[in-house]
């Protein structure tokens, strides 16, 4: 047979072993399979085939070859052992375990126990795995020490696990993977500084010894080729370490640094990425690339294995984006994952929020039940903190305070979902009642204070109280006032004005104006809408109180310069005021100076000019393919023209 596979006599050994040495397993397998057809059951062929399959990660075929070999050479226990190994690596844990019991040679006992422990570990039968590891007589065997560490980690005994990994380094010398394990234990104990230190060691070593892995190059904007999922990459523990670094920065809310840790990682193409990296890429780029993020997480959920966080995160992200139907679908479709991957707290919370859209009363009841349980916990912890203080037990105080903070962080989302049900019905008094009930636990919490401020504000007769809540939020950020949400600044100004503190309002607005000027000087491309929003909110307030003269002039001023300030939202709120004025004029409840009318018409002409390409609403992302034909009536220019014609009609100038 003369084809490219034909090998000359006398060159078989050289050709095949060279391919194996170069890792060209597929090529070697092709030749070996041809030989196997000519002479089936030949030990040499089967052995090399098994080897190639195993290292080419085709464990199913490797298992088949080792099975044949163990029957062909029943005296060679190694083949039985590798048969077990292949089955285990291929995920067939039951068969692997059964075959392992057939290896009776006492010299193999330690090895058999080790692989049995690994099987039990993969099956998440940690108690049996522990039993097997503990049976080993060799306590100095680094593998056994590491495995004890892994098992302690699974039992959430991170401090003890960490000690085991440190012991393993003393026994067998530095290994990147062990340094990673230690960092991981610190991470689980929220000791981020030592965790980052150990990660830095791994990364520094990786960069120094393997510059070919292109660490950091993608972040620097250099286009580099994939380094592939090589054994070398695995040994450096770089992928693990960069993911852990990203996780730490994410927990510390340093989102930019988290993203950078992911791009610093040795480059691989997307289809080569492991589930952990894929998950973190999705999570940490959700702000900028939500569609891709959802795709990645949905993809992961369809795989056999994925990080246990995937399920809960996907559901929470659905809630965040208000895709409640999708969340309900996923919850129903993967009912068995509910118990495996969601804490009871997370399950109850997600379930209650989903219920909100179909049965608000029922949702409220579910949330109320949860809230009451949380309040009980918080009361208990408050008492414990007090007791620890009385005993002057500093350690206990610190730990209990941490527990309290964690419990509060779980309570706040429940409380706010509950309050939101009333908020959406504009029942502000009921929202306030809910907040009064939670004041003893939450009065230091930023989100709670912000929402209390909003709900006082919306009742329109509690501006003094609202000031008391808005003011500290603004004062806290006085050096970077543009970091405060614009609506907070606006509502504080309104609250000042309504309580006759006009000077405070003017001071604040001057401060915002100054910072916006500074920012447009430093970063001309960045859009800032803070002063614009403040003016619209104040303008709306005056219009709502019937002072259109002043109110409208504020609104008009807010949109200057039009090319930078006219947008979907700003137009929506500006138009509300103009329409309201028209209605009041139409009912002949008011007359207005000609100069103001003139200003309004000029304002609408400006909007017409600059609003040709600005839509009047943010359409939800289209699910249908292809571009949608533009609707000429759904742009700012059209609406501005329409309003102008109505004003002209009113004035009789038409």
């Amino acid at each position, binding site marked *: 047979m003369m084809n490219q596979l034909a090998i000359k*006599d*006398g*060159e*078989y*050994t050289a050709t095949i072993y060279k391919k194996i040495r170069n890792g060209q397993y597929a090529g070697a397998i092709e030749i070996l399979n041809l*030989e196997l057809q000519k*002479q089936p059951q030949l*030990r*040499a062929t089967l052995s*090399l085939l098994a*080897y190639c399959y*195993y*290292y080419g990660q085709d464990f199913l075929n490797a298992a088949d070859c080792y099975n044949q070999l163990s029957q062909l050479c029943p005296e060679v226990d190694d083949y039985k*052992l590798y048969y077990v*190994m292949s089955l285990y690596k291929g995920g067939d844990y039951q068969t692997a375990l059964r075959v392992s019991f057939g290896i009776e040679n006492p010299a193999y006992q330690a*090895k058999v126990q*080790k*692989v049995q422990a*690994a099987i039990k570990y*993969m099956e998440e039968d940690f108690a049996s795995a522990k039993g097997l590891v503990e049976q080993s007589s060799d306590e100095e065997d680094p*593998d056994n020490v*590491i*495995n004890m*560490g*892994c098992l302690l980690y*699974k039992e959430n005994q991170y401090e003890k696990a960490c000690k085991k990994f440190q012991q393993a380094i003393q026994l067998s010398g530095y290994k990147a993977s062990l340094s*990673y*394990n230690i960092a*991981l234990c610190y991470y689980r104990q929220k000791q981020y500084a030592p965790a980052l230190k150990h990660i830095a060691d791994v990364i520094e070593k990786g960069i120094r010894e393997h510059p070919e892995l292109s660490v950091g190059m993608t972040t620097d904007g250099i286009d580099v080729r994939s380094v592939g999922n090589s054994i070398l990459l695995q040994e450096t523990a770089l992928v*693990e370490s960069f*993911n*852990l670094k990203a*996780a730490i920065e994410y927990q510390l809310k340093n989102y930019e640094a988290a993203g950078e840790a992911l791009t610093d990682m040795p480059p691989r193409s997307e289809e080569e990425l492991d589930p*952990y990296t894929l*998950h*973190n890429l999705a*999570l940490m780029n959700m702000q900028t690339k939500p569609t891709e993020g959802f795709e990645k997480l949905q993809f992961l959920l369809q795989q056999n294995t994925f990080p*246990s*966080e*995937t399920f809960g*995160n996907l559901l*929470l992200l659905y809630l965040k984006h208000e895709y409640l139907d999708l969340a309900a679908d996923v919850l129903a479709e993967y009912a068995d994952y509910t118990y495996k991957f969601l804490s009871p707290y997370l399950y109850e*919370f997600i379930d209650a929020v989903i219920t909100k859209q179909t049965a608000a009363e029922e949702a409220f009841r579910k949330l109320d039940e949860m809230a009451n349980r949380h309040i009980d916990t918080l009361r208990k912890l408050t008492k414990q903190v007090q007791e620890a203080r009385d005993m002057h037990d500093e350690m206990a105080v610190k730990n209990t305070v941490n527990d309290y903070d964690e419990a509060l*962080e*779980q309570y*706040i*989302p429940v409380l706010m979902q509950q*309050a939101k049900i009333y908020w959406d019905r504009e029942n502000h008094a009921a929202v306030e009642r809910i907040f009064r009930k939670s004041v003893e636990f939450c009065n230091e919490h930023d*989100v709670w204070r912000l*929402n209390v401020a*909003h709900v006082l*504000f*919306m009742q329109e007769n509690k501006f003094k109280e609202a000031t008391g809540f808005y003011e500290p939020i603004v004062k806290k950020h006085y050096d970077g006032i543009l970091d405060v949400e614009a*609506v907070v600044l606006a509502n504080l100004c*309104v609250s000042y004005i309504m309580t006759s503190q006009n000077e405070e309002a003017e001071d604040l607005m001057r401060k915002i104006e100054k910072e916006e000027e500074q920012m447009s000087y430093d970063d001309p491309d960045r859009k800032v809408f803070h002063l614009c929003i403040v003016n619209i*909110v104040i303008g*709306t307030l005056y219009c*709502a109180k019937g002072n259109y003269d002043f109110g409208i002039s504020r609104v008009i001023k807010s949109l200057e310069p039009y090319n930078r300030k006219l947008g979907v939202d700003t137009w929506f*709120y500006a138009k*509300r005021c103009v329409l309201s004025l028209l209605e009041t004029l139409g009912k002949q409840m008011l007359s207005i100076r000609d100069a103001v009318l003139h200003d309004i018409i000029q304002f609408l002409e400006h909007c017409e000019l600059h609003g040709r390409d600005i839509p009047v609403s943010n359409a939800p992302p289209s699910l249908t393919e292809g571009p949608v034909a533009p609707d000429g009536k759904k742009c700012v220019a059209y609406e501005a023209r329409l309003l102008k014609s109505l004003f002209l009609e009113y004035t009789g100038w038409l």
Partner: protein
Amino acid sequence: HEPLTLIPPNFDTPLPPLQPAVFPPEFRDLPGPPLDLFDLDDCFSSEKVRLAQITNKCNDEDLEYYV
């Protein structure tokens, strides 16, 4: 329709925090199988060559076996 009202701010409903994923520590199993060494030219060569090899190995005493 409703009369003009104040602009309602967004009511903040924070969600439980999202959790990043981290690789678990890797459990140690056995090292992979070693590479067996075989003389493949001995096993795979065509019949003619193998016959020649056997011929070369034989001396007079093996004559009976060879035939």
